[in-house]
Structures are given as structure tokens and as C-alpha cells.
């Protein structure tokens, strides 16, 4: 039996297979006899068991789908999966010579190269614009998404161009051109704006109007949680402005001066932006309790407003700074036992949030019979309260803010007067525009208009198209410009139009259109987009232009150079994220019971990326992918997920952590990101994990399951283990073909929970008598099984040993993924044979990843379109 995918293949291409087609070759006698003797009983045209028909008199080897079909036939024969055990078996020699015949035919007829013209994908387009013009550029939200195929989003055949996309390109091109060519500037009028407290923004519990002033009490990174700003003011002309403020300190602590920071924030920027990232305009110290005048002059840019931030507020809401919040809570409760007692009276959680919550606490505070018996710092209830309040600082600070609005310390803003522009200045955008113009257009000097235009166009075209333009290209653009000038437009408007046109032209949007071996410039582009998701830099372009790139060692040297550069981070992120599917973690919300948040999942993702990068940079042995003596992770993940306590540096940053070889964690099969990406955030899914390992580690993906099979729904009561549910597969022969490969691997990984933490039992969540959810140990996990080659394994340690023992399968798999990503096409039979050869040669040496990586860049597959 052959699985569902094969069937589908036949349905789609069966007609083409057996019709008489051009380029079809008759099947020679010996293979025809083999088919007749061992295959056609079940796979003749009439029976077509499993949807597979092998009855034919000739084969059209020129078709990729036909070659794929016969390659699968070859694989099942070579693996001994066909003919089925109960049927008559061919002699070893017969089988071998039939397989050899298929191998020869496939090798002879499969091509090297043949990538369908690749349109720049989103990341490549963004980076290209940034690199060509040296401007900060982000894709607008309305930009259409790319389609993923063969595991990656940079595959030629799936990078479709649609009318809405071309329209989006057209709009982006005009936006880019606008940033280079100066529009007319309007004359500015000096104005004076008086901002009363009621004209200032209130967001979350950041500020409140008290005693006729706008009062600030918290320090918290996001603007919307800590700041106030004039809500009806926006700078229309970049310039210097005079700001006068009337400020006072409300009940300062220990007479400490209050520091008010004034920062510039673009009005259109999200209010979630972090205060420290905003440009500091001025800071003042306020210590008097009656209003005092302050004045400063600062540069403000078009679109700015001024945010007011109480930089040393004792109420510190930043999550990353819990100790400060905890200290503040303890100090407060120690100093005010009645306040502590009142907090002990209220129900915590959402209802207590904000001013309503504070009012409730005050009611208790006012009671004469307030129970003070537990209001001591050493009472266990106090510790419980503080622990609860530490869980969600944002929530409780929203309440404590109101206490501070009433009792201080608070910083009061009485009135602000903004006057300007005193002097008009160039905004950063205008300055960049002027510099860009000087670089890209320059002065005409003593050139004729046409000569100037041609120079500008030639320079722009070689940047945009990643290769020197032909004279014909330049002619076409000069023609366009000349007509435009003839209609009365300026030279700069002509360049504006030329830029808009270049950015929607096929030579910019598609790379490598010419078939065959890549020329030096196309090769430079392939290398650059592979390793940096961006166009070639100046050095690589120079190497292409001189032809050096096509000489022996140069391509490798350039690759090594690019990998050393910062820009290679794009390769690591895009390749690893898609190969290991860790991109999925962006959208995965782990169940709260797993005690690993979204932010930590993102760090786990970085772990996998840094691990891959280190493997490459340090040229580590291939087996280290599976069983290394290190990982690069955070102290929190090392502790929480990997159970490592010792040798950790006390920092939030990623750090190199030593591991014992032969252990549970470490390597791709034990990494938190991989194990989380192959689960669903709540439950593990052994089938998904098994398929994932086959596809991404062993390079032997099973065909997709038939549509009619429902997914297994996890049984959370624990009465039925997943193993029992999967047993059904082994009973049904058609399922068993694939599931005997999938399930043992997936089950061996069951000791890892949905975020990769070790477990011996399935968890069961029950409600106790108080109605709280509690976790209990469910049934024990049984990670044993038998791999298709008969190897018995008992869990992850055995599985890792087995993969290390068959490391070439992994090396071939990774090598193939790298080349698919680099070339943008699925690889042909002969290309995969060449990869296998490179992997073998590498193994005969030291079997190190870096060496293999650079040999791939030198391969025929890489160098051919």
C-alpha cells in the first residue's frame, strides 16, 4: 500500500504519464519484465491499487511530475516496502538492477537549475529599498502577504504578482520618490498655544486633574501608562519653540526634588511607545510646593507633541523592574498598617483596578472597626497579598495611582504655553531628503541636461537592478524623462518619475531571469539575498563587475565575509524560523498553566537561532546539531525548562550554557522553541512532532494524511493515553505505512511538555473542593517504540543516539533545506544526488557544518538559475 499523497499524484498526473507524449521513451525489456512480474498484479491500469498505476509502454522523463512518480517507486523498492511481504519477492539482483535503471534514467533526465523567476518577497523588498536609497523604510500595513511553499516564503513559483500587489508597489514607489525629491515648503506662521490642564491627555491611570492641575504619579515605560501631553497640539512646522510651564510638587517624599522630563513624541506614533526611546527635550527639577515658572527652548519637528514624564516617581510600573515595585509595596505597607489592613479586606483581581478599587479600599480605611490583627509585615496573609500583587503590577498600579493622586507624591502641571516656531529648521526628513538628492542627483555642473540625466539614470539603474544597465535601458528612461520635461516638468520631477518607474520594473522586482549558469551579477544577487535578505553590497557588486566572483575561491570568500557582517542576522532569522517552524511561535499563546509567557517563547526562538549561528561560525561537527555540549539561552529558560541551576550568569540576556552530552535537552530535538512550535500551546501532539522530525531532521516526509481522517482530539481526563488513541493506526494497514515511521518518534518526545519541559506523567487538571484548579499526576508516559529499521528505542536519549548514528540523513536534509532556501526551487533528483555526494565527502573529512555549508554555496545547484 502506498499512502494518500501518492494517490493524489496519480490522479493529477496520471493522464500525462500514460498518454503518448513528446520526449517519451519506451521502457526497455528488462525493467518492463520486472514490472510485469512483481508490480502489475496490483498496479495495472484496471486495478491501480492505492491509485498507483505502473502499466505503461513508455515514460516521458522530461516531465518533473513523471520523474517524481518514478522516484517514489524507486524509493519504496529500495527500502523493501514493495512488493508487500505477502507477495512474491524479486531476487536481490533483480531488485538492484531495476533500481539502478531508474537511478540512471532519473539522473540523466533531471535538470540542474530551473528556478522560476523570483519576485522579491516582503523582507527582500523592504531591505532592497532601504539598501538602494539608504532610507528607513517599512512596508505599509496594507502590503499583501507572501505565500509559503516547500517550507519557505522565497520560492519562485509561489511568489505571485497580483494586481493589488503591483498597485501596492506603485504606491510605495511614489512614497520612496517623495522622500528624495523635495516638495514645496509652506510658509510658517508663529503661534502661541496656551494649554490648560483640561487640554492635556489622560490615558490609563497615568494622570488625573486634581486641584486645578494635571497630576502625574507614575513612572512606567509605555507613554500611555505614565505620561500626559497637550491633546490638541501638534507641531505643523519644524522649528525651535519656547515652552513655559507652571509646575509644583505635591507632597514630595523626603523633600526630594521631582524630575520632570519633556520628550518629543510624534502624535501619530502609537501611545504604547516607550518613553526612553523618545527624544529628550529638557528636564527640570521641581521641589517647591507652590507653582513656579520654568522655561526652555527646544527643537520640535513636524508632527511632534511634547510628553510630560515624572522620571523619578516612586510608583514604578515596569514589569522588568519588579524588585522596585515590590520594595515600594513593602515600604508602603510597613509604614501604613491601616492601608495594609484595608487591602487585606478587598477582593483582588480586575474589580479592584483603577479609581473604583481605590474608593473601596478607602471605605475600609475609614472604618473604625478595621481589622488590624493581620496587618503586620510578618503575618502570612501579608506575604500572600504581596505575592498576589506582584503577579500583575500593571493592574494594581492602576489602583495605587489613585492613592497617590490623593496623597502624593505627585507632580502638578498647572499651565503650559508653547510659542513658535521662533526659527524654522530643517526637519530630519527634510535633511535626509537634501542629502539623498545631493548623492543621487547632484549638481549639473557643466554637463548638458541630457548628460546629467543619463549619469543620474545610470547610477540609479545599477543600484535598483543590482547590475550595470545596458545602454538600451538608459535610453528608455531618458526617453521617459525627456517627454516629461517636454510637458513642462522640472528635471527633479523627471527623476521622480524615473524612480517611480524603476521600482515597478521587472528587472527590479524579479531576480535572475536568464536561464542557465548564473552570470556574475545574478550570482552576487543570489548570494546576497541568501545570506542577508538584501541586495549585494558595494564590495560584492565590485567583485561581480570585475568578474572575480566567478573565479575559484571568491564566492566562498564573499560568503564568509557576508556571514561575518551584521546583515547575516536576516538569514539566520528567516532560515531557522522557517526550517524549524519556530516562526509559528509569534502567534502561539501558551496556556497559562505552562508558566512560560509569550516574551520567553520569543527568547526561546532566539536560542534556536543563536545555536544555529554558533554551529556555523564555529564550524562544529554535524552531530552537535543533535547532541551538543552547549546551548545559548537565558537563565530563566535554562532554569524553568531545562532544569539547570548551576553555572548560570545572573543576566536577562542570552548566554552560553554548558550541557552534558547524551542528556535530555540540548540539540534541536530538545530545544524549547522546537518543542513548543510542534505543540499547540496547550497539549503535545505526537503525530505533529513525528512528522516534523521526519520532514525537518531526517528528510523523509510522509505524504499528507487522507482528508477523511479526523485529527486526534486530546483527551484531557487522562483516562485514555494518546498512545492508545494512536494504536488504531497500527491496526489499519494503509495508516500503518506512514504511522509506523511517525508515531514512535512522536511518542519518544512525549516526555517534553508543550513548551519542552521534562515530565514523566501526563498532567490532569481538576477542581479541588474550593473550586480552584489543581494539577495532578495522570498516567505515566511511555516513550518506547520501534523505529522502522527495527531499532528499539526507549525515549529521547535513544532517539538522539539513533539520529547521531545516522547523521548523514540529517546532513542531507539540512543541506537540501539550505539549497531550497538559497535557490528558491525544490531540488531535482540529480541535484540531491550531488548534495549526497557533498555530504559523504564532508563526512570523510571532519564532518563539520561550516565546511558543508560553503561546499553547498560552491555547488552546481547554487550557481545555476
Amino acid at each position, binding site marked *: 500500500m502506498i499512502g494518500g499523497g501518492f494517490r493524489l499524484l496519480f490522479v493529477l498526473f496520471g493522464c500525462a504519464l500514460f498518454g503518448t507524449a513528446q520526449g517519451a521513451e519506451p521502457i526497455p525489456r528488462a525493467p518492463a519484465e520486472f514490472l510485469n512480474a512483481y508490480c502489475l498484479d496490483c498496479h495495472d491500469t484496471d486495478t491501480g491499487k492505492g491509485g498507483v498505476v505502473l502499466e505503461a509502454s513508455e515514460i516521458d522523463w522530461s516531465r518533473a511530475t513523471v520523474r517524481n512518480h518514478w522516484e517514489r517507486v524507486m524509493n519504496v523498492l529500495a527500502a523493501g516496502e514493495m512488493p508487500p511481504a505477502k507477495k512474491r519477492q524479486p531476487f536481490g539482483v533483480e531488485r538492484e538492477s531495476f533500481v539502478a535503471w531508474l537511478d540512471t534514467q532519473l539522473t540523466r533526465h533531471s535538470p540542474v537549475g530551473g528556478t522560476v523567476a523570483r519576485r522579491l518577497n516582503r523582507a527582500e523588498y523592504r531591505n532592497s529599498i532601504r539598501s538602494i536609497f539608504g532610507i528607513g523604510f517599512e512596508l505599509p500595513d*496594507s502590503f499583501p502577504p507572501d505565500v509559503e511553499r516547500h517550507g519557505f516564503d522565497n520560492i519562485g513559483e509561489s511568489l505571485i504578482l497580483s494586481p493589488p500587489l503591483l498597485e501596492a508597489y506603485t504606491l510605495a514607489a511614489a512614497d520612496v520618490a517623495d522622500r528624495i525629491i523635495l516638495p514645496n515648503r509652506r510658509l510658517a506662521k508663529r503661534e502661541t498655544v496656551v494649554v490648560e490642564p483640561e487640554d492635556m491627555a489622560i490615558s490609563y491611570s497615568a494622570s488625573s486633574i486634581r486641584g486645578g492641575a494635571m497630576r502625574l504619579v507614575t513612572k512606567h515605560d509605555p507613554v500611555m501608562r505614565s505620561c500626559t501631553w497637550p*491633546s490638541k497640539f501638534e507641531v505643523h512646522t519644524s522649528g525651535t519653540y519656547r515652552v513655559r510651564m507652571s509646575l509644583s510638587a505635591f507632597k514630595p517624599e523626603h523633600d526630594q526634588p521631582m524630575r520632570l522630563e519633556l520628550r518629543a513624541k510624534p502624535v501619530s506614533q502609537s501611545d504604547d511607545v516607550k518613553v526612553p526611546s523618545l527624544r529628550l527635550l529638557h528636564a527640570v527639577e521641581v521641589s517647591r510646593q507652590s507653582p513656579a515658572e520654568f522655561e526652555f527652548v527646544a527643537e520640535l519637528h513636524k508632527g511632534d507633541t511634547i510628553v510630560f514624564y515624572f522620571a523619578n516617581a516612586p510608583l514604578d510600573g515596569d514589569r522588568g523592574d519588579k524588585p522596585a515595585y515590590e520594595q515600594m509595596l513593602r515600604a508602603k505597607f510597613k509604614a501604613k498598617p491601616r492601608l495594609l489592613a484595608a487591602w487585606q479586606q478587598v477582593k483582588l483581581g480586575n474589580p479592584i483596578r483603577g479609581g473604583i478599587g481605590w474608593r473601596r479600599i478607602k471605605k475600609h480605611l475609614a472604618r473604625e472597626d478595621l481589622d488590624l490583627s493581620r496587618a503586620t509585615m510578618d503575618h502570612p496573609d501579608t506575604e500572600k497579598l504581596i505575592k498576589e500583587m506582584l503577579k500583575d503590577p500593571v493592574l494594581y498600579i492602576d489602583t495605587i495611582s489613585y492613592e497617590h493622586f490623593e496623597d502624593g507624591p505627585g507632580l502638578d502641571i498647572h499651565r503650559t504655553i508653547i510659542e513658535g516656531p521662533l526659527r524654522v529648521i530643517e526637519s530630519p526628513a527634510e535633511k535626509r531628503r537634501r542629502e539623498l538628492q545631493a548623492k543621487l542627483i547632484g549638481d549639473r555642473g557643466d554637463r548638458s541636461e541630457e548628460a546629467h540625466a543619463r549619469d543620474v539614470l545610470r547610477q540609479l539603474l545599477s543600484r535598483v537592478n543590482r547590475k550595470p544597465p545596458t545602454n538600451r535601458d538608459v535610453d528608455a528612461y531618458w526617453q521617459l524623462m525627456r517627454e516629461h520635461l517636454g510637458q513642462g516638468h522640472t528635471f527633479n520631477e523627471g527623476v521622480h518619475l524615473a524612480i517611480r518607474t524603476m521600482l515597478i520594473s521587472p528587472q527590479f522586482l524579479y531576480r535572475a531571469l536568464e536561464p542557465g549558469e548564473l552570470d556574475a551579477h545574478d550570482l552576487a544577487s543570489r548570494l546576497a539575498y541568501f545570506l542577508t535578505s538584501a541586495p549585494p553590497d558595494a564590495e560584492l557588486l565590485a567583485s561581480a563587475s570585475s568578474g572575480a566572483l566567478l573565479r575559484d575561491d571568491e564566492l566562498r570568500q564573499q560568503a564568509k565575509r557576508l556571514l561575518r557582517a551584521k546583515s547575516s542576522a536576516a538569514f539566520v532569522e528567516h532560515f531557522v524560523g522557517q526550517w524549524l517552524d519556530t516562526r509559528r511561535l509569534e502567534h502561539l499563546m501558551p496556556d497559562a498553566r505552562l508558566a512560560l509567557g509569550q516574551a520567553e517563547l520569543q527568547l526561546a526562538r532566539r536560542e534556536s537561532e543563536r545555536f544555529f549561528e554558533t554551529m556555523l561560525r564555529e564550524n562544529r561537527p554535524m552531530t552537535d546539531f543533535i547532541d551538543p555540549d552547549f546551548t545559548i539561552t537565558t537563565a530563566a529558560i535554562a532554569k524553568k525548562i531545562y532544569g539547570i541551576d548551576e553555572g548560570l550568569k545572573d543576566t536577562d540576556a542570552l548566554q552560553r550554557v554548558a550541557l552534558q552530552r547524551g542528556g535530555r535537552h540540548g540539540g534541536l530535538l530538545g530545544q524549547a522553541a522546537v518543542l513548543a512550535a510542534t505543540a499547540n500551546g496547550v497539549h503535545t501532539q505526537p503525530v505533529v512532532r513525528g512528522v516534523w522530525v521526519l520532514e525537518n531532521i531526517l528528510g523523509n516526509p510522509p505524504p499528507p494524511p487522507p482528508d477523511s481522517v479526523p485529527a486526534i482530539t486530546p483527551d484531557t481526563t487522562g483516562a485514555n493515553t494518546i498512545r492508545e488513541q494512536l494504536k488504531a493506526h497500527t491496526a489499519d494497514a494503509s495508516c500503518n505505512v506512514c504511522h509506523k515511521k511517525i508515531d514512535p518518534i512522536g511518542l519518544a518526545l512525549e516526555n517534553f511538555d508543550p513548551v519542552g519541559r521534562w515530565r514523566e506523567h501526563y498532567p490532569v487538571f481538576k477542581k479541588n473542593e474550593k473550586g480552584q484548579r489543581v494539577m495532578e499526576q495522570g498516567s505515566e508516559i511511555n516513550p518506547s517504540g520501534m523505529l522502522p529499521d527495527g531499532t528499539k528505542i526507549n525515549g529521547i536519549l535513544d532517539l538522539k543516539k539513533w539520529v547521531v548514528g545516522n547523521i548523514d540523513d540529517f546532513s542531507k536534509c539540512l543541506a537540501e533545506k539550505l539549497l531550497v532556501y538559497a535557490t528558491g526551487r525544490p531540488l531535482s533528483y540529480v541535484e540531491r544526488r550531488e548534495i549526497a555526494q557533498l555530504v559523504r565527502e564532508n563526512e570523510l573529512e571532519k564532518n563539520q557544518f561550516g565546511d558543508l555549508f560553503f561546499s553547498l554555496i560552491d555547488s552546481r545547484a547554487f550557481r545555476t538559475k
Partner: protein
Amino acid sequence: MLENKTDRRRFLKATGVSLALPMLESVPVLGAASGGAKAKRLVCVGGYLGFHQEAIYPKETGRGYTMSQTLQPLAGHRGDFTIFSGLDHRAKHGHGEWANYLCGQKVGKVSLDQIVARALGQATRFESIQLTAGQASRFMSYNHDGVALPMIQRPSVFYNKLFASAADRAHTEYLLKSGRSSLDLVRNEAKRLQGRVSARDRHKLDEYFGSVREVEKRMTRQLNGIDLPLPKTDYKLPGYDPIAPNLMIEAEQLMYDLMALALETDSTRVMTMFLAGLGQVFTIGGETLQAGYHALSHHGNDGEKIQDLVRVEVEHMKCLENFISQLKAKTDAEGRPLLDSTIVMMGTGMGNASDHTNNDLPTVVAGGGFRHGSHVAIDPKADGAPLLGDLYITLMQQMGMEVDRFSNAKRNLNELFS
């Protein structure tokens, strides 16, 4: 509460028979956007934090209901709107799935407004317009390619789009005209390349040619539109854009005013507006609320919180009331009130923001030539209970569209609502 549920069940029973029948035959089939359709315009407003169900749903069902607390501002328009309870798309829960409001069961599928825009939007300057009051944290409209459409947050930007200055118009015209010569050049370049590439790449270039042709057509349409006389207005915006969080209600009212002008001048026939729900602290009736909007929505069934939350929701309804009044006063080309042929829907993708659940979505529909005035209560647990998508099918049919599917819905609500 219990009484209320019994009511709903009884109500459904009465209509159960017709619900089970395929009702397509009973619907008059009209050409898309035909002149004979009762409704010609659609405005969808979506509240990000939903509407507290207990406060917006009237206790009684049918026509004789007592006006609910949240709907109180609309009391004067009682005969011009219908409130639906118990409808939803059977979508997933959570803030992330909010856009199910107009997308149906699966977020990212083409949204109701965009389906309608394709049918009704061709004759006007703007096929559709997307707006937001407050900073949008989610998308609301998705086009046929699954692309989320950005929203205009500044009333001044919307105003300039509708009533562009002569200089702005000249600039747009310039970009479009010169853009056509751009397309000529790149088309020639692609033709030159065609001779040198493989057969499969020629297909790739065909994609390119097809796209160029399509964009050219759109440019031509826009250029033709540019010669139409621009609408004029005496309406004056304030000197600032109310985009600070606590000015959201002010922005909301301005957007409604401008939407009414857009419909009156027939600049567009399809609009959406998102009502943001972040930390905005509102001042209502001179009193500043004691928590931000988002914190209020996480009320955890706390009475005081709910009270303040409902006060904010009532403010939304006051804005809507003002809009409906304007649509009654303004008239279309035939001199009839705009509201008669404009469907105004106020809904949400979130049923209960405190629990982040996306079922039982409160939905108000006003205008559009329907027979209004009741509380249509659906018991979602009943066998074959209608979906929110069924209501959308009815809305589209009212606009003359031959549609019998929306997301997971395959019927309509014509028997309950027509």
C-alpha cells in the same frame, strides 16, 4: 433572567418552521446594486470592547420591548432600528479574533463591507472607506485577497480625502497621468525580457503583464473620476485632530459627521468605523471616569465597573443617534431621507470583553428600508439557530445582491427581519 430566556425560546418556536425551510426562493432576485434595491449604502461600526450584554439587550423580545439602558439614546428612533441578540459566527474567542465581526467565522476572509463594496462601490469616487475612532489595535476590513485594510484615524485626513483642495487634486492627477507612461516603459521592458527567458518564466511575466493591465484600468477609472465636480461643504473641523486617547468620543462624532457628508455627496457608499478600546480615560458629563476604557471592560462582574463601562457605551450610542438623525435630515438625489436607503450597523466581534468571548454579539441595524422596531432574540443553542452571517445575507439581499452565502452561513433572516 430566566423569564427572559423562556421568552426567547418561545419566540424561536414560533418562527422555527420557516427557519428550517430554504428561503432563497422567497427572495426577489435583483441585479447586483440594481436601482430597484431598497438599500444602496452600508455603514458598519464595530466596537472593539463590545457592549455589555445585560445593559444593551432589552428584557423583552419582539416589538413591545422596554428600551434598554445602553439603547436609551436611540429611543427617539425606535421605529428605525432593530436590536439582535444571540447572533454570532461561531468563531474562536479572544481579542485576536475580534475581526470575526465582519469576516465571519475566519478572521482574514473577505469582510462584509468589502463584498458589498465590490458590488456597490464602482459608481462612486471611493469604492469604500475605512475609519477608526481612536488608535486601532486591530484590523476590521479585509479585502478579497485577505489583505487587512488600514484605517484613517485623523478626521482631517478623511476630510481632505472627501473635499480635496485644487492643489491636491492637481497632484493626484499628475501622479496618475505620469504613472501611465511609467507602465508603458515597464511593459516594454518586460516584452524585451520575454524573448530571453524560459517557458515557465514567460508564464511569470504573463502575471506581470496581467497586473500592469489591471492597474492601468484602475488608474484610468480614477482619472475619469477626477474630472467630476468635487463636493463642497461649509463644515469646519477643529484646528487640531482629536487623536489623543481621551478625545476619542470627540473624534468619533466628527467621523460620523464626515460620514454623513460623504453619503450626502455620494462620495462613497460603503464605510466602516472601528471604535478603539485601549486605556482612554473619558470625561463624561464633567466627571472623569476612575479607570480607562479597557480596564472597565475587564470588570470581572463588578457592579461599579460595569456602571462606568455602560456610561461609555451610552456615549457611543449618543454619537450613533446623532448620525441617524443626520441621515434622516439629509436627503438623496430623489429627495428621500438618506436613512431610508442606508443600512447602518453597529456591532462587534466580542460578546463579553471581560471573558474575551466572541459569541452572542450584540448587533443593532438601523435604516435601509427594513421594517424595524423589535428586539429579535435568537437562542443560539436551539437546533439550526441562525447565525450572524444569515443576517448579513439578508442585508446584502436588501442591497440587491444575489448572495446566498456568507462565511459559515447559508440561509438568511428574511423571515425574521424584512
